[in-house]
C-alpha cells in the first residue's frame, strides 16, 4: 500500500523524471526492433516503418502506461490545472473580470450569511438548548400592565411567575429575567479601588436562572435560590467578557464587594466564558442580580406589584413533556393568576381575560428581540445579495460561453488530433472550477471584511456585541459550495456546446464562429443580467430617495450646537423627594459653564429610541381611545431642543409642584382632540376616567417636533412641568418613577469639543455617582436613527453598479 503510494507520488512529483524514463524505455525497444529488422535484411526506412506498425501509436501507449501507473486522475487534473492557469494568464482581462465578479457575488453572500448565521441561527451557548422553552411569542417590553389587544402574553409579573413556577412540574426549571434591562443601566464601582463609577448594563434574574441554563461558573459560584430571597445579602454574578475587559480576569473579583447603585453587593462569581446572557444585545449585561435585590438596588416599585408585568420566562421542560397540553395548562394558570387583578375584574375585563393566552416557543436561541428587530433587515440584505449573485452568475456564464465559442476552433482541432470528448469537457470543467475556486477564496476575503463592515453599519457603536465575524465551518462550506456550484453549472454549458460539435463541422465553420456571435442563450443571459442590475439600481434609488426624504424632513427642532447627556438619578441613589433640588443644582452648575446658553432637562429627547405613552381623555368629551406620549420637562427644555411655542406659553417658573398642574400639548394633539377653531388653551385633560380628566390644564401649544422616529408622524404629545404630579394620582411620591428624568440638553453659543469632559466633571462634582450614561451631539443622535436606511441604500448602489 505504502509502496503504491510512493510509486504514485513519484509519478506525480517527479513527473519529468518518470516521463523521461518512459521515453528512454520505449526508445530502447523501438531501436532494438529496428535493428532486428535491419539484421533480417530490410532497409533502414522499411525497418522503421515496420516497427511503428508493430508497436502501435506511441502517444496511446504512453497514455496507457501513465494510466497503468495509476496516476492519471491526479496527473490529468494537475495538467488540466496547469493548462488552465496558462490559459487564464493569457487572457488577464477575462480572468480578472470573472474573479472580481465572483468575489463580489460570493463575498456579498458569504458576508451576509455570516451575519445571518451569527444573528438568526445562533443558539445560546448553554446546555441542551433544544429542551428550553420560552413562555410567549412576542417581545413586548419593558414594564407594563393590562393587556394586549389579542391577549397574547409574553411578559409577566413577579407574582404570576411564582404561581406558574409552583404549578408546573412539567418544567425541570422555570427561570425569570428582566424584560427591559438594556434601558435601565446601573452604576457600579469596585470597592477599595480608585476607579470611577461606571454606568453599565445589569439584568435582574431569578435565583435558578443559571441552573436553568445548565451553566457552570468560570470562577466562584453562580446565583442560587437563596440569593433571590427578600432580605438575603445582596449578591451578583459578573459577565465573563466584562470581567476580562475591566478587570483583566483578576481572580480576586469573585468574592469582592462592588457598589451597585451606591449599595454594597458581593460579586460571588463569574459567568462562564462565551455566555452572553439570555438574548443577543448590543449592551449585554455586565452583572446578573437576583430579582429580590431589585427593590433595594433600583428602587423599582413594580417588582412586587401583581399588576405590573416586567419579566420574561424561559423554562427547561422535562423529557417527554408534550408542548401543546403544556401550553394550555400555562394559559389556564395565567388566566387564574390574572383573575384577581383589578384590570381583569370588571365586566369588560372578564371578557378580555378569556382571550388571554401564552404561546410556548423554542427557547434555545433565548429571547429573540434582536433577531426579530434585525430579521427583516437581514432578509432584505439576503435578497439583495442573492440578486447580486444571480447577476454575477449570469455575467460569468456569459463570459464563459463567449470564451467557449471563441475556442471552438481550438477544441475542434484538439478533437481532430484524437483528444477524447470526455477529456475536453473535463478540461473546460476544470477551468471553470479553478476560476470558481479562486473566486471563492477572494470572495471569502471579501466576506470577512464585508461582514465586519456590515456589523459596524448594522450596530453602530456596539462595544461588545456577541457576534463574531470570524471564520466558521458553515460559512466556509456555504461559500465553497456556492462557488463550486456556479463553476460546474456554467462550465457545463460551454463545454457541452463545444464538445457537441463534430470536429469536421466545427473546423469547417471555425472561421465563422466569432462572426456568428451570440446565441439565444447568450442574448438571454445578457438580458437577465442587465435586468437584474437595473432592479438593484432601482431599489438603491428608491432607498436613497426615501432616505433623502426622511433626512430632509423638517424635524421641527434645532440641532446646531446642541449636546445630549444621559444620566440616571435613580441609580445614583436619589429619592424622589430629593429630585427637585438635584435638577436645580444641575441647571445652575451647567449654566455656570462658559458658552452654555440653555440647559434643558427632560424624561427623554427627540430622535432617541424612547417613548412613554398613556391614554388621554379631554374633560367633557368621551374617551376616544387615543393615546399620547408624555414628557416631563424643565423651563428651558423647549428652547434647548428648538421646539417653538405656537400658542399660549411654554413651561415656566410659575409651574412649581404646588401650583396648578398644567401641560403644553403639540399641534397634533390639538388637531385630533379638538374641533377646528376650538381654543385648547384653558381646557383640561388627563388619564381616562372621571377622576382624572381634569388633571392637566392646557397652557400652550408647541410644534410637532419629531420624537422616536421620522416615520412616526401625527403623534400626540404633551409636556408637563418636571416635578408636577397629576392631582388625582393616588400613588405616593416615593413610588413615582416618572419623576426620574434621564436627559439633559445643552445649547451652547459655539461648537464645544470639550463639552463631554466638562459635562462629566460638572456632574461628578455634584455627586460622584451621577455618571454620564451616554454623551452625543444632537446631530449624532439624529443620524443614528437613519443608519438602517443609509446602509441598505449604500449596499444596493454598490452591488447594482
Amino acid at each position, binding site marked *: 500500500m505504502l509502496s503504491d503510494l510512493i510509486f504514485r507520488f513519484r509519478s506525480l512529483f517527479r513527473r519529468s523524471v518518470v516521463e523521461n524514463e518512459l521515453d528512454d524505455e520505449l526508445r*530502447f*525497444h523501438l531501436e532494438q526492433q529496428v535493428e532486428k529488422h535491419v539484421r533480417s535484411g530490410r532497409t533502414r526506412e522499411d525497418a522503421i516503418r515496420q516497427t511503428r506498425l*508493430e508497436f502501435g501509436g506511441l502517444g496511446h501507449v504512453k497514455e496507457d502506461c501513465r494510466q*497503468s501507473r495509476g496516476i492519471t486522475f491526479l496527473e490529468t487534473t494537475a495538467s488540466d490545472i496547469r493548462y488552465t492557469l496558462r490559459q487564464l494568464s493569457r487572457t488577464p482581462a477575462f480572468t480578472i473580470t470573472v474573479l472580481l465578479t465572483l468575489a463580489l457575488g460570493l463575498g456579498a453572500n458569504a458576508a451576509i450569511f455570516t451575519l445571518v448565521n451569527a444573528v438568526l441561527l445562533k443558539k445560546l451557548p448553554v446546555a441542551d438548548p433544544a429542551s428550553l422553552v420560552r413562555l410567549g411569542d412576542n417581545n413586548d417590553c419593558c414594564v407594563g400592565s393590562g393587556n394586549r389587544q389579542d391577549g397574547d402574553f409574553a411578559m409577566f409579573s413577579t407574582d404570576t411567575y411564582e404561581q406558574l413556577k409552583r404549578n408546573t412540574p412539567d418544567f425541570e426549571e422555570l427561570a425569570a429575567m428582566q424584560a427591559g434591562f438594556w434601558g435601565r443601566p446601573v452604576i457600579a464601582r469596585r470597592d477599595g479601588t480608585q476607579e470611577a463609577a461606571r454606568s453599565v448594563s445589569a439584568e435582574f434574574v431569578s435565583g435558578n436562572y443559571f441552573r436553568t441554563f445548565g451553566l457552570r461558573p468560570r470562577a466562584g459560584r453562580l446565583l442560587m435560590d437563596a440569593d433571590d430571597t427578600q432580605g438575603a445579602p445582596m449578591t451578583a454574578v459578573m459577565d465573563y467578557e466584562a470581567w476580562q475587559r475591566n478587570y483583566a480576569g483578576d481572580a480576586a473579583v469573585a468574592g469582592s464587594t462592588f457598589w451597585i447603585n451606591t449599595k454594597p453587593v458581593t460579586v460571588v462569581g463569574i459567568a462562564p466564558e462565551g455566555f452572553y446572557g439570555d438574548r443577543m444585545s448590543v449592551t449585554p449585561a455586565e452583572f446578573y442580580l437576583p430579582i429580590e435585590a431589585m427593590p433595594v438596588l433600583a428602587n423599582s416599585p413594580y417588582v412586587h406589584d401583581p399588576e405590573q408585568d416586567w419579566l420574561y420566562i424561559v423554562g427547561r421542560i422535562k423529557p417527554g413533556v408534550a408542548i401543546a397540553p403544556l401550553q394550555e395548562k400555562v394559559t389556564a394558570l395565567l388566566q387564574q393568576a390574572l383573575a384577581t387583578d383589578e384590570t381583569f375584574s370588571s365586566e369588560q375585563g372578564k371578557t378580555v381575560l378569556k382571550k388571554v393566552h401564552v404561546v410556548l416557543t423554542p427557547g434555545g436561541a433565548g429571547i429573540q428581540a434582536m433577531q426579530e428587530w434585525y430579521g427583516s433587515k437581514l432578509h432584505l440584505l439576503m435578497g439583495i445579495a442573492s440578486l447580486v449573485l444571480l447577476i454575477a452568475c449570469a455575467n460569468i456564464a456569459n463570459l464563459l460561453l463567449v470564451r467557449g465559442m471563441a475556442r471552438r476552433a481550438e477544441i475542434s482541432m484538439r478533437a481532430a488530433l484524437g483528444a477524447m470528448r470526455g477529456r475536453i469537457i473535463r478540461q473546460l470543467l476544470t477551468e471553470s472550477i479553478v476560476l470558481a475556486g479562486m473566486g471563492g477564496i477572494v470572495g471569502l476575503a471579501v466576506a470577512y471584511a464585508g461582514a465586519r463592515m456590515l456589523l459596524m453599519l448594522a450596530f453602530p457603536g456596539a462595544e461588545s456585541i456577541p457576534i463574531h465575524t470570524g471564520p466558521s465551518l458553515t460559512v466556509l462550506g456555504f461559500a465553497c459550495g456556492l462557488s463550486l456550484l456556479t463553476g460546474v453549472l456554467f462550465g457545463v454549458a460551454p463545454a457541452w456546446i463545444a464538445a457537441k460539435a463534430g470536429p469536421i463541422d466545427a473546423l469547417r465553420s471555425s472561421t465563422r464562429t466569432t462572426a456568428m456571435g451570440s446565441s439565444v442563450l447568450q442574448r438571454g443571459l445578457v438580458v437577465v443580467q442587465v435586468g437584474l442590475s437595473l432592479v438593484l439600481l432601482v431599489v438603491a434609488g428608491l432607498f436613497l430617495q426615501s432616505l433623502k426624504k426622511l433626512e430632509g424632513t423638517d424635524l421641527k427642532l434645532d440641532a446646531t450646537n446642541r449636546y445630549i447627556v444621559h444620566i440616571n438619578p435613580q441609580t445614583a441613589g436619589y429619592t424622589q423627594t430629593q429630585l427637585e433640588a438635584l435638577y436645580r443644582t444641575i441647571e445652575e452648575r451647567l449654566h455656570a459653564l462658559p458658552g452654555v446658553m440653555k440647559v434643558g432637562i427632560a424624561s427623554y429627547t427627540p430622535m432617541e429610541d424612547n417613548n412613554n405613552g398613556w391614554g388621554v381623555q379631554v374633560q367633557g368629551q368621551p374617551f376616544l381611545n387615543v393615546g399620547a406620549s408624555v414628557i416631563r420637562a424643565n423651563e428651558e427644555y423647549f428652547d434647548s431642543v428648538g421646539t417653538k411655542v405656537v400658542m399660549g406659553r411654554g413651561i415656566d417658573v410659575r409651574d412649581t409642584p404646588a401650583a396648578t398642574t398644567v401641560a403644553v400639548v403639540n399641534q397634533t394633539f390639538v388637531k385630533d382632540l379638538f374641533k377646528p377653531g376650538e381654543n385648547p388653551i384653558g381646557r383640561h385633560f388627563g388619564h381616562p376616567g372621571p377622576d382624572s380628566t381634569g388633571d392637566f390644564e392646557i397652557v400652550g401649544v408647541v410644534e410637532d417636533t419629531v420624537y422616536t422616529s421620522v416615520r412616526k408622524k401625527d403623534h400626540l404629545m404633551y409636556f408637563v412641568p418636571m416635578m408636577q404630579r397629576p392631582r388625582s394620582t393616588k400613588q405616593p411620591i416615593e413610588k413615582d418613577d416618572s419623576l426620574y428624568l434621564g436627559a439633559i440638553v445643552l445649547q451652547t453659543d459655539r461648537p464645544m469639543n470639550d463639552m463631554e469632559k466638562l459635562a462629566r466633571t460638572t456632574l461628578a462634582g455634584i455627586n460622584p455617582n451621577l455618571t454620564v450614561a451616554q454623551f452625543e451631539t444632537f446631530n449624532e443622535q439624529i443620524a443614528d436613527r437613519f443608519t438602517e436606511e443609509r446602509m441598505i441604500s449604500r449596499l444596493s448602489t454598490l452591488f447594482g453598479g
Partner: protein
Amino acid sequence: MAATHIDLPQGTLDLLILRTLALGRQHGWAISERVQQMSSDVLRIQQGSLYPALHRLERRGWIKAHWGTSENNRRAKFYELSKSGRQQLEVETDAWAKLTAAVAQVLGTV
C-alpha cells in the same frame, strides 16, 4: 500467415510476462521477443501493449524494475520477479490450468 495468429485472451498477458520473467531478469524488448518465441509465433501481441502491462505489474509490486546495461551496451530498463510476483505466478498458473481444463471438459462433452 496472419490467419495463424490468434489474439491474446484478456488478462493472459500478465501471466505470460510473469512466466517469462520467472526465467530471469529481462528488459521489455527481450520479454516481447521471448513471449513471441515461446508461443511459437502463434500469439500476436501488439508490442505497445506490453509496456502498460509491465507498468501495471510494477505498480502492484509483482515485478521490480532497475536500469541496467543491455547486451549491446545500451542503457535499458530491466524487470525481475519479486517474491509476491512469484506467488502470483503460481496462483495464476493454477487458475489458468483449472480454467483451460474446465473449458476443455465442456468442449469434450458436447
